[in-house]
């Protein structure tokens, strides 16, 4: 026990003496949280619309206004030539072109029917799809209004009506940050855990000080505990710090129990640290360790359901995500913090993470040898 305490003391001293790393450990997560929390949104707020109005009647002007009065659309150009608009799109200044055809008003009055051309810059498929739904709903609203203002043109009242009432649970304002921030916290904790622990032992290897530790009477398990415990504590501290910052800055909901969050986080960090340890037993230089850790991080994040929902993936990919610890912890964070899940609601995740932790640490410990090759 005394040995472990000394080892811990050594590690903490090393961490806190490194003046270059200290701000990185504590400031970087904060900055990332602020930036990512604000940047990570699929909401489309600013669609640059180019209006080509060939009609130029009061009705077509009203349609224009309907577009521009929403907060989503900003005008990037206006003319009566489609070719001008297309040029602007090619330059990248325009996201959407709305073409109001000639005789728009006349056709609406006489034929009750007309066509509108909407051209989208679909380089970003997701944005284009969202913009399209916005645009369509504006056109729908426009037609409804038009009908109401011209009762003589209104058709007979439909006799069969379905009344649709929509309720958005857990997040009635559809606020994106309360969805993203819990996930981002997971990434931050993972980064600290995996990179620092992964590079720590390799550093001793690379610099040569591992030999000195190997010849001491420190036992294998003592060495491992001494190496992992500091980062385990650091990771939990980081999570507490991050949660506090998220609560202050973004006011993210904390419906569920924080004790539960930390309980799962404690297990999750064991998985992450175990991975870091495993990486360090496989590599000789910090560069390699960092590369492998980075590689795993990227795959875990992309497959973790942070940015894109796991349900949207093909079935094979969904099965692969079962082995992704980040996916499980993100799920837990979201369910507990936003939805107020109880321990019984997330017992599967806890079991899975617990088994991962045991497996990976056992693997890493068995690979770690006190004899260098």
């Amino acid at each position, binding site marked *: 026990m005394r040995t472990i305490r000394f080892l811990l003391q050594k590690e903490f001293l090393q961490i806190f003496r490194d003046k*270059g*790393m200290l701000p990185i450990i504590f400031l970087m997560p904060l900055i*990332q949280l602020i*930036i*990512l929390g604000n940047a990570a*949104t*699929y*909401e*489309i*707020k600013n669609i*640059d619309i180019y209006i080509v109005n060939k009609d130029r009647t009061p009705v077509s002007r009203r349609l224009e206004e309907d577009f521009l009065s929403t907060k989503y659309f900003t005008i990037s150009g206006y003319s009566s030539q489609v070719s001008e608009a297309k040029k602007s799109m090619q*330059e*990248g200044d325009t996201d959407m072109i709305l073409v109001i055809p000639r005789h728009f008003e006349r056709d609406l009055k006489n034929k009750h*029917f007309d*066509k509108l*051309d*909407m*051209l*989208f810059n679909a*380089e*970003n*498929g*997701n944005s*284009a799809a969202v913009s399209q*739904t916005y*645009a369509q709903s504006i*056109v729908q609203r426009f037609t409804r209004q038009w009908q109401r203002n011209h009762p003589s043109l209104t058709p*007979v009242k439909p*006799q*069969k009506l*379905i*009344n*649709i*009432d*929509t*309720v*958005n649970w*857990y*997040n*009635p304002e*559809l606020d994106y940050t309360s*969805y993203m921030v819990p996930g981002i916290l997971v990434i931050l904790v993972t980064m600290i855990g995996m*990179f620092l622990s992964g*590079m720590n032992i390799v550093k001793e290897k*690379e610099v040569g000080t591992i030999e000195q530790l190997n010849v001491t009477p420190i036992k294998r398990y003592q060495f491992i505990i001494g190496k992992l415990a500091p980062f385990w504590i650091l990771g939990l501290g980081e999570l507490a710090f991050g949660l506090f910052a998220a609560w202050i800055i973004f006011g993210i909901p904390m419906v569920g129990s924080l004790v539960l969050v930390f309980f799962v986080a404690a297990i999750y960090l064991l998985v992450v640290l175990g991975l870091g340890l495993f990486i360090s037993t496989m*590599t000789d230089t910090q*560069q*390699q360790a960092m*590369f*492998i850790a980075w*590689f795993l991080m990227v795959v875990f994040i992309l*497959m973790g359901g942070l940015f894109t929902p796991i349900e*949207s*993936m093909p079935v094979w990919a969904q099965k692969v995500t079962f082995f992704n610890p980040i996916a499980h912890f993100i*799920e837990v964070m979201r*369910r507990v913090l936003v*939805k107020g*899940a*109880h321990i019984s*609601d997330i017992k599967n995740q806890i079991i899975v993470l617990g088994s991962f932790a045991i497996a990976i640490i056992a693997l890493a410990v068995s690979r770690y040898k006190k004899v260098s090759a």
Partner: protein
Amino acid sequence: MNSFIGFVKKEFYHIIRDYRSLIILFGLPIIELILFGYAIRNELTSAKIGIYDQSNDHVTHEITDKILSSGYFQLYGYLHTTQQVDKAFRDGSVREVIVFGSKFSKKLGDGEHADVQLIADASDPNMSRMLVGYTTSILLNYEQSIQTPGKHQLLTVVPEIRMFYNPELKSVNLFVPGLIAVILMLVSALMTSITITREKEMGTMEILLVSPLKPIQIIVGKVLPYLVLSFVNVMMVLGMALYIFHVPFRGGFIMFISESMLFTITALSLGLFISTTSSSQQEAMMKALAGLLLPTIMLSGFIFPVTSMPKILQWFSVIIPARWFLVIIKGVMLRGVGIQYLWKETLILAVMAIVFLVISMKKFKTRLD
């Protein structure tokens, strides 16, 4: 000159002998591309829904069938109490619950309003918006289909929608340019900064500094192998994107190569800059990760559109080279435009490259403290 060639050779050997790093260096882009091409989707495919049917008649069954056969939804099960609804949301079994009010078909027949409630799990706002949107349109379609045809025509304006440059809305088309930027950053900036700090940390920098090599030769020698590596990497990603994922390439190839080179030089100079300001590999790596890679992924418009961000972040994104590079690459690959449309972005990148290069050359110390 001879000693310089020897030095470059040494650097190449360092890289090539480290097969583990090499595997990752080439494996990572391939895996990322495959993930983006096959696995990462934003579209709704089979969201789990629950049905809480309080009337249980032929109309509600018909609507349920319509919803389930649309391909967007997958039935988790029928729920019978509000407690069950609550539980199903909390343990993540369902994303949406459709509640049919009582006496549904009777009300519909009598000309009353029949009630449907859509409860969505809005903890994922994007998803819930899509779910509610799809369900509503299915319900409205059904409503339309059961109307007795009247004399009057419904007034309609039909939007004719055309998607330019990427008609199938494939996300891989957008991700390939972003991926190229990330790879160039990873290889050029991260690797360079780490190799130089490594020499510092190991103490071999001293040996290099007392050698007859000039500082500029040391820098160029360190950077050159990575320039070659990133070039090979980009070609590989581009090849895969074109031949496996059929991402369009509409612009000029020379334009693409020269712009990529320009961006690589910017990234290399950033890597140099980081290495001059850090003393350990860990420090350099964390700085490169936090200062270069994450902004490249998050703030450049790679995944999230820049215009949707708060104004402050939009201003901040101006100093991120990848933001301009992405505009250029997307322009060249997807829209097929040339330098006459992209000279502004190119100029910004060039200025950035020169500024960082000058700063890091100045800061590169030839003495140890």
